[in-house]
């Protein structure tokens, strides 16, 4: 049998750089979905169920232990909205950090760049985070005695900012961990620190000066405060500083982009 000739055109016009990046990101995204979903597409539900279950279990534990809500009358709403940014941040940033290690062999294909891998992962995780948010809000609306947010757009923007912060903070950690694998361990240690320092288990405005201002430097605390401020009518915005949160996240991303460009030779040699 003779070889079937390949009938691709002789010299195709080069695709634009944006189209090349989009193709690589799309391919990696579909690959990620396939690998995480397993042989059945319903496996994708696990990407949603894990953070949702985490959120619901913690809220239930707080309910069982009878923690009173410092604000409002419904403890499920208070703790649920407080923990939501933490869960979104934790799952998203952790997936960003491990994405390069999981997809390292893909860098051998010259069309695949480091940021293609990171962007594909954030698209997948951000989509999951949005779905988790929608489902959780529906659960709160059904089971809460009085679910009535003051500012719906504010809540949506707070969740979007949390996703943005999770991505922006995950990227530099991913780059560092790509060069120094021991950094994964360090990054995992920061998660309980964020849990304790983000005002989830205490009311940040009840902390005395100057310690409250130091705590306010934690961007995740800003996400928690923003979502509470957007929900409650009379929640104090003493520590809320949205421009700081956005600037911090953007600075992380900018530093990452610059660092990746400067250290690309080292990153690719790994």
């Amino acid at each position, binding site marked *: 049998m003779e*070889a079937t000739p390949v009938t691709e055109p002789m010299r195709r016009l080069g695709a634009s750089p944006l189209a090349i990046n989009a193709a690589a990101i799309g391919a990696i995204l579909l690959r990620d979905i396939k690998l995480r979903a397993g042989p059945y597409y319903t496996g994708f539900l696990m990407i949603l169920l894990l953070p949702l279950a985490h959120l619901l279990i913690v809220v239930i534990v707080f309910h069982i232990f009878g923690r009173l809500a410092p604000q409002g009358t419904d403890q499920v709403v208070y703790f649920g909205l407080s923990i939501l940014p933490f869960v979104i941040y934790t799952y998203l940033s952790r997936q960003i950090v491990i994405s390069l290690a999981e997809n390292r062999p893909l860098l051998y294909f010259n069309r695949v760049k480091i940021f293609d891998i990171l962007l594909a992962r954030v698209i997948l995780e951000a989509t999951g985070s949005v779905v988790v948010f929608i489902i959780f809000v529906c659960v709160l609306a059904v089971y809460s005695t009085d679910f009535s947010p003051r500012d719906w757009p504010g809540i949506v923007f707070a969740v979007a900012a949390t996703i943005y912060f999770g991505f922006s903070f995950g990227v530099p950690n991913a780059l560092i961990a790509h060069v120094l694998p021991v950094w994964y361990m360090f990054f995992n240690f920061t998660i309980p620190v964020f849990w304790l320092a983000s005002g989830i288990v205490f009311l940040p405005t009840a902390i005395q000066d100057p310690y409250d201002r130091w705590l306010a430097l934690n961007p995740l605390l800003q996400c928690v405060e923003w979502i509470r401020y957007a929900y409650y009518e009379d929640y104090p915005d003493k520590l809320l500083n949205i421009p700081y949160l956005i600037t911090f996240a953007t600075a992380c991303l900018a530093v990452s982009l610059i660092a990746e460009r400067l250290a690309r030779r080292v990153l690719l040699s790994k």
Partner: protein
Amino acid sequence: MSAMIRLSRVSKLYRTENHRKVVLDDVTYSFDTRYTYGIFGSNGAGKSTLLRLIGGTELPNSGQIFRDLRISWPLGFGGGFHPLMTGRENLKFVSRIYGANLRRVIDFVEYFSELGNYLDMPVSTYSSGMQARLAFGLSMAIDFDCYLVDEITAVGDARFGLRCRQAFEEKRGRSSMIMVSHDIGTIKAYCDRGLVLYRGKLVAFGHIDDAIEFYRKNL
């Protein structure tokens, strides 16, 4: 005007704890893609590194590499395949990256690799020869202006070897090739020009036989 791959004062070195290995030492050379090139060098000379630099998957320590054409990844490489994904799923992934027609690539690889039902099995169930056939078939299925061929050894049976040679011949009229191999016969069969990577320098010869002679003398 033919497309070019141009190395301009490229240096590449690797540092280990006790050792500094210079792979390329201030190399300047232009590959004219109207020709096919064979690169010789002793073990550890840096031939595969040179291919990765040309392909863009690794960066030099200094100097620049200019490309104005579509370059493949090193042919025959299957390291980007995920072992838990089937051969077909891996093909789809790579086809999407390079914007190739999925149906056409799959049809070609099905015929070329002769993997049959194994194409729908996880790559982890493949033998090394099957993985190489899948990778090689995929490389041939996607249209590049220049193919990078790294140490193509005999994979598969004589019939598969014949298909490889036919695929190379078919590509020859439309695409260039930069081939690295210890097999002088293979390089001589496919390459017009020869280069020898010798002590960090890329020694160029107008004819492949001259490169072979230099390589043999300095082994």
